[in-house]
């Protein structure tokens, strides 16, 4: 900014009014009206729900809104007054259920696997696309590999059904080989692989875009110099490409750590098709919150799980960022 202003004399002066002249007030009013629609959306769907987090400390049974609900819009305040405070008992209850360990294991386990595998594969894909000699082919490959990102999880659930159902592709193969068929929808042991495969299938192409964009921006002279010094392709990748990519990798991983207690609800919910025997391997925190909420149990319980998810995620992203800033200030997100 400063550099640009210096290039055009006069700009610096006009762009940096220090007094509130009438023109300045008018301009700021214009800016504020531009912000208004976005602020309304942010307020309605991001900030207004925040006070409802206190439900985690309440006993709350959701009632259908009465006919005169417009008058009852003191809802936010009623949260603090009407319902019984129960302290941490909602948290105690959910952490003492036998499901708690299973849900945490699934949430963290899947997310860590997705993070690590996803990172390796998407960086590898970006480097491979970059190295391919035929640029047109590289573009075609990448365009195709990117496509699954735009296909909804429900369609993926159909695809999975076509492969693993009673007369799906896999069972046809087993039949052809003279083996017994497998009922995948009641065999939990296969599903961790199915979830991991589907996650990689859907997201790798998309995740590699940012790495690819960063890669192509690197100074080619570095590679030329390395080649002159006798570094082979592999050495160039490990000694130039990866170190230069590290800031981007770190930035994206900070964000991923913040989402470690969130999961792909659509995937874990829709792929198993509501099959009971798969609950042990498909219930992540998001799914647990949703199921608890829909089970008709008091809303405070689901709210406690959601509260845990929000707060821990927030603390995690702040902590990771703090650590990164200590180690290497340039790489921190904020």
């Amino acid at each position, binding site marked *: 900014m400063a550099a640009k202003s210096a290039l055009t004399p006069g700009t610096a002066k*006009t762009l940096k009014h220090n007094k509130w002249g009438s023109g300045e007030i008018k301009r700021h009013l214009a800016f504020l009206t531009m912000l208004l629609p976005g602020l309304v959306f942010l307020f309605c769907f991001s900030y207004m729900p925040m006070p409802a987090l206190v439900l985690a400390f309440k006993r709350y049974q959701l009632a259908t809104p009465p006919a005169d609900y417009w008058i009852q819009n003191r809802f936010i305040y009623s949260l603090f007054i009407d319902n019984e405070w129960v302290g941490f008992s909602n948290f105690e209850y959910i952490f003492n259920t036998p499901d708690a360990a299973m849900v945490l294991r699934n949430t963290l386990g899947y997310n860590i696997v997705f993070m690590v595998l996803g990172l390796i594969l998407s960086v590898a894909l970006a480097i491979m696309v970059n190295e391919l000699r035929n640029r047109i082919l590289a573009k075609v490959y990448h365009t195709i590999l990117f496509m699954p990102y735009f296909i*909804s999880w429900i369609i993926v659930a159909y695809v999975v059904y076509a492969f693993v159902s009673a007369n799906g592709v896999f069972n046809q193969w087993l039949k052809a080989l003279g083996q017994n068929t497998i009922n995948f929808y009641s065999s939990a042991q296969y599903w961790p692989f199915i979830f991991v495969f589907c996650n990689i299938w859907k997201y790798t192409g998309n995740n590699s875009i940012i790495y690819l964009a960063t890669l192509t921006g690197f100074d080619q*002279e570095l590679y030329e110099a390395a080649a002159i010094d006798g570094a082979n392709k592999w050495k160039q990748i490990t000694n130039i490409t990866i170190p230069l990519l590290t800031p981007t990798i770190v930035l994206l991983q900070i964000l991923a750590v913040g989402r470690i207690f969130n999961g792909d609800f659509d995937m874990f919910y*829709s792929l198993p098709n509501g099959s009971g025997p798969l609950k042990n391997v498909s219930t992540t925190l998001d799914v647990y919150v949703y199921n608890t*909420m829909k089970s008709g149990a008091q809303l405070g319980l689901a709210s406690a799980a959601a509260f845990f998810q929000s707060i821990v995620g927030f603390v995690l992203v702040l902590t990771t960022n703090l650590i990164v800033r200590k180690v290497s200030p340039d790489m921190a997100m904020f």
Partner: protein
Amino acid sequence: MTSQTHATPKVKIVKKNRDMNEISNGANTVLNIVFIIAVLVTVIPIWVIIVASFTSEKALTTYGYGFWPQEWSVEAYKFLFSKGSIIGTAYKNTIIATVVGTVLCVASVGLYAYPISRADFRWRRAFTFISFFTQLFTAGTVAFYVTCRQILHIGNSIWALFLPLSFSAYWVLVMRSFYKSNVPDAVIESARIDGAGEWRTLIQIVLPLAVPGLATVALFAAISIWNNFFNCMLLVDEAKYYNLQYTIYQTLNNIRFLREMASQVGALASMVANLPSETFRMAMAMVTMGPIILAYPFFQKYFVKGLTIGAVKG
């Protein structure tokens, strides 16, 4: 090294080295093979669905799913388009939600990102933070549900399908960098000297320059609304407001459950026989993802460009 690059002979060497620096024939072949396998793994699952939707019901029951239809048939599609009502309402809801939601999203994101990209807007940091904070901290599903149902009263209506998705803090940050890097200060400055107000500057000068960025926002907003399933499941009760994704999810769910039961309880077998056939459901999946697959080659050149803007930090 760098001081010598201006000399002509050195340039030649550099050029020669660039050729040397390409991967070897062998490595290139290996890479191509890896890519062809990856492409097949990506495309075959979709292909299986397409094939199933064009297979006759009898062949699908007898031979199961495969890579080539044992018996071609367009019966499923004929059935689908004749009984429009099953999927027609869902299609209508999805299209309305996608169009209205996309317009709202482009407008609100485009407008919000502009002032916070301007160095002479005094509160740009505060408003950037208001948007960015929602990326770091969310109130969660229960709070969202309670707010939509009890305060905003958008539950069980078509509003639920697009309003919560009509703004995106992530795309605000992307658009902010886009304005910063693609709209020169000098252009804005000259508009001001000509006496144009901020709104006029935005509409007549800045927005035409921001079309690639806004197109990317539009595409991603449209796809996120088209593909959304969670909000519909969470907030909508009546079938007349269902969108496509939720409708086809329910169909798949019902059929699997009944098929499993039917193998145990004989009486259910007749019920299963009356359910929408398997090819019919695959045809439903096809018309749900069809528009996206068909539009994909046309819009993909935009989003690669648009996404790379997001890679710019700050």
